């Protein structure tokens, strides 16, 4: 199994989720994060006090998938999250040793 982590633009989340569901993904974890990368942040000034906000709001998605599905998932995120502007995000793939569904105790691909 693979554990896929992706950082994407927040407004792409719903589209990505729908597309992933379509290819067979049945679950994921989503967090709001602050991204740092080539895309630059912005500056805020409050009465002369200047604060450089170096982070850009991103959404992080984590998905555990069966090996067979991994490539399709990566390809799907890639296609849907892409806007061709800096800051579109990254996809990272880790090896997943084990998965377990708390409710049933199922393990492996069955747990996903």
């Amino acid at each position, binding site marked *: 199994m693979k554990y896929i982590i992706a950082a994407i633009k927040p*407004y792409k989340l*719903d589209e990505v989720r729908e597309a992933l569901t379509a290819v067979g993904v049945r679950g994921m974890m989503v967090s709001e994060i602050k991204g740092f990368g080539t895309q630059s942040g*912005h*500056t*805020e*000034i*409050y009465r002369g006090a200047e604060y450089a906000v170096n982070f850009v709001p991103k959404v992080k998605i984590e998905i555990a998938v069966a090996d067979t599905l991994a490539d399709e998932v990566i390809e799907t995120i890639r296609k849907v999250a892409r806007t061709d502007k800096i800051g579109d995000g990254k996809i990272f793939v880790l090896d997943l040793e084990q998965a377990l569904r708390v409710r049933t105790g199922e393990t492996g691909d069955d747990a996903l």
Partner: protein
Amino acid sequence: MMKKAMGIGGLFALLGSLPAMAQDTAAEVAPIIDKGDVTWMMTASALVLFMTVPGLALFYGGLVRSKNMLSVMMQTTMIAAVVMIVWVLYGYSFAFGGSTSPYWGGLGKLFLAGVTPDSTAATFTDGVVLPEYVFIAFQMTFAAITPGLIIGAFAERAKFSGVLLFSVLWVTFIYFPIAHMVWDGAGLIFNMGAIDFAGGTVVHINAGVAALVWALVLGPRVGFGKDNMAPHSMTLTMVGAAMLWFGWFGFNAGSNLEATSGATLAMLNTFVCTAAAIVSWALVETITRGKASGLGAASGMVAGLVAITPACGTTGPVGAIILGLAVSPVCYFFVTTVKQKFGYDDSLDVFGVHGIGGIVGAIGTGILMAPGLGGMGGEDFAIGAQVMIQIKAVLITLLWSGVGSLILIYITKAITGIRVASDDERQGLDLTSHGESAYHS
């Protein structure tokens, strides 16, 4: 009673020619300034400011996404500030400057020329006057909040400079003239005999129509119908609505200009019509979707306040409850069904609540004034005739504000532009138009 009820609209009739009058009558009976009235009008003026900021700013601000919160607060605040200056420079004169034109007040009081601590303004009652300063202040707060109502239509996407330019143009060419027409003794609508106690046409229908035109011209927000655009803080929206209610006592009972029994009737009506509209919005929601929501209660609250605005001086308390029960379902139908059908993005439902609520109120005023319905009309009061007059007043306002706003939006578009770039819209107006964020940890 008839005389008084009929006289309600007539109050402002005297204002145009006030200083002159003050001199005339001085020889006869010295007009009285009652400190109770002065206190009431100062309190009322402060209350109407409170409606604007923080009231309206929070009511609207809570409804947008957090990335646009400050833009809403800024628009409300800056519009009010700019209009106040304009009011002193020429607005008061345009509305109440003393000209005999049915359309505007003329140039007689530019820069408040001639107004001194001894100047007075008339009230509903012969021989009872107010220091003119407090009349200027009270009317100023009305002018300052009205264009602020419109911003709900173009929230989350309008260009800040365009909003300000439009607001100045709009009060100049739409609000001041209509205020003159409705409230000045020389005014067109006033002389038709229309009843608009506290500004249902001048403020709410007027702003509601302008809002509709804006929504149509500007087009929907990026992501409209797709992205989740749920209110970022229903808490603040409910707080803002409650503040509107509180301030509205100044708006409505203040429009009586005196602390008389008439003002207390206006206040009681402003309580109970609003309560009824809250309840009826909640009922409609419970019937149609099984649950009464906080936004529903807040919307009903504002709809009730809008509806009672023209009627608060001439309706009985039971009539006010009936009006409140009636207004919410109509507004509800507009903001859910009609808006969806036509697909325009009047983002915070300015037309659906203020425009439609104002129309219901204007017509309801003509009905509920009937003595048989507990209203303050005289024995010879004829519902049909009065309703026709009310409708005519509404139509004139719709036309004037509709066409006028359309022209002014295009003028604004040509000069400053009216919409931000879609990338900026996506990032939020707070950062891109104002350089700050509403919330940090």
